[in-house]
């Protein structure tokens, strides 16, 4: 069936098997495209369509998972095409700003020195550039609570470690290429770890995550003492 609605809309609809459909808004990474995604996410959530089981935002697409016993492919496309996502522009653009306290360097940031060296600057300069930016959370994925962040200054880009670590502690803030992120759970990994946050990015019991697609985020440097205080209050 032709999805005629999409001709006027800003997306293409593609089946992802028989129980998911992906709304494709573009093929690049930009805050504008991501706002489209988040807008439609809000619109679909509000519409509360019976049979839709999940809405998974990504950089420039939204995957709608559904139960084919409750909703056929044609019915779902009809519902999607009938939405007015522009209604939700306000929700998408007034997105929350999350501040994340980070203790940079020392025992919490074993790779801060190597990043500084690779980028030809001091550790303090790396910290300044990392914490000056306002980041956009494009989506969560890879592991529970893990935010894909956009907006890192390219001057502090550094390649992954040649030999990944066996264990990176939860809360570790790292750099891998041009990306920066925060490990929500202890895991092996090859990111260069420049600091750690005492905040919990993911709570399995409740399913709560600190970050959400469309959120803005800033890192705020804190001292070792402040880190200890915050860590105690989080537990």
């Amino acid at each position, binding site marked *: 069936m032709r999805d005629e609605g999409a001709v006027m809309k800003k997306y293409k609809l593609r089946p992802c098997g028989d129980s998911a459909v992906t709304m494709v808004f573009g093929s690049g990474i930009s805050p504008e495209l991501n706002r489209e995604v988040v807008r439609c996410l809000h619109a679909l959530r509000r519409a509360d369509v019976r049979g839709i089981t999940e809405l998974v*935002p990504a950089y420039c697409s939204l995957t709608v998972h559904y139960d084919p016993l409750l909703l056929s492919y044609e019915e779902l496309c009809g519902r999607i095409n009938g939405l007015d996502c522009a209604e939700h522009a306000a929700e998408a653009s007034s997105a929350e700003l999350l501040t994340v306290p980070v203790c940079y360097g020392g025992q919490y940031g074993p790779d801060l020195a190597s990043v500084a060296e690779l980028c030809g600057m001091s550790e303090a300069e790396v910290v300044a550039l990392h914490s000056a930016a306002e980041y956009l959370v494009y989506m969560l994925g890879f592991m529970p609570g893990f935010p894909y962040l956009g907006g890192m200054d390219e001057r502090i880009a550094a390649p992954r470690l040649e030999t990944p670590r066996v264990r990176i502690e939860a809360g570790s803030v790292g750099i891998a290429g041009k990306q920066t992120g925060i490990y929500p759970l202890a895991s092996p990994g090859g990111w260069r770890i420049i600091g750690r946050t005492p905040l919990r990015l993911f709570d399995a019991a409740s399913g709560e995550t600190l970050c959400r697609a469309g959120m803005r985020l800033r890192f705020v440097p804190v001292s070792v003492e402040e880190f200890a205080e915050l860590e105690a209050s989080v537990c």
Partner: protein
Amino acid sequence: MLKVVSPGLLTTVQDDGRTGYQSRGVPVCGAMDRYALFAANILVGNDMNEPALEITALGPTLEFESANIFALAGGRFAAALDGAPLKPGRAYAAARGSVLTVGAAEDGFRAYVAVAGGLDAERVMGSAATCIAAGFGGYMGRALQTGDRIGMKAPRAWMSGMTRRETKLRYSAEPDIRVIMGPQDDLFSQRGKDIFLGSEYRLSGDCDRMGYRLDGRDIEYSPGNDGNIVSDGVAMGSVQVPSGKPIIMMADRQTIGGYAKIACVISADLPLLAQKRPGDSIRFREVSVMQAQESWRRLVRALRALEEDIAAEDIW
């Protein structure tokens, strides 16, 4: 309680997966073969998606510390209860102290042990599926080990209609696995798509709950493209092609993927895939979304018919 005398190769508590949290990066997990999970539960009078034990290749040995009714459904394993051989797809009564030895898979690769009243498993975010990667859900977020004891919520020594609690799980013997093309099939050349749909692929030794890596002919991309895409959502059965060879995303897959997906296996054929073992060959066959959804409906109708049949009252 059900005591684990020996754990088998990979035995985990699974239901039909954790839905509603993929946008938070939480994988769905759940049964690799939902058809067998649903059947096992129906045989013992449970809701279809009640948590059960998923068994892989070599099954566990379990001791029933309380009497209960159980069923083993899926592939055919060399199973025995107190030494007496068991038929797959049938409910049996285990006495207190009975020992169930699931044994090795003789036909197929996975099966499910469901107990009447269900397992007392850790529900996290609404599901008892085990998320091995993040370590939560099911039984302590991990595969079973010797000495583990799993609670049974409502064990019972007998159930009515035991002679009706039997079914033949007929898996297709065809090597065909039906797929819906896309969402990134446009990144592949016509020749690439023809290769994908026309060749035989073999399950490599690198096949697990996260994904199945296949051996076979390389799939060609369209000019200017390679296997990389801007990361997007994936579904169970999505066939990613990072660099020529296909990888089928399975139950424990991550929620977001950065590789081109040429097609997606249909829901009704995922149970067939779950019963394949390393070395087995498959071929992909294209179907429409409508055909795929009709096949799934047919599968669920058959299970509902079994449920009704078991629940029917005896005439005599």
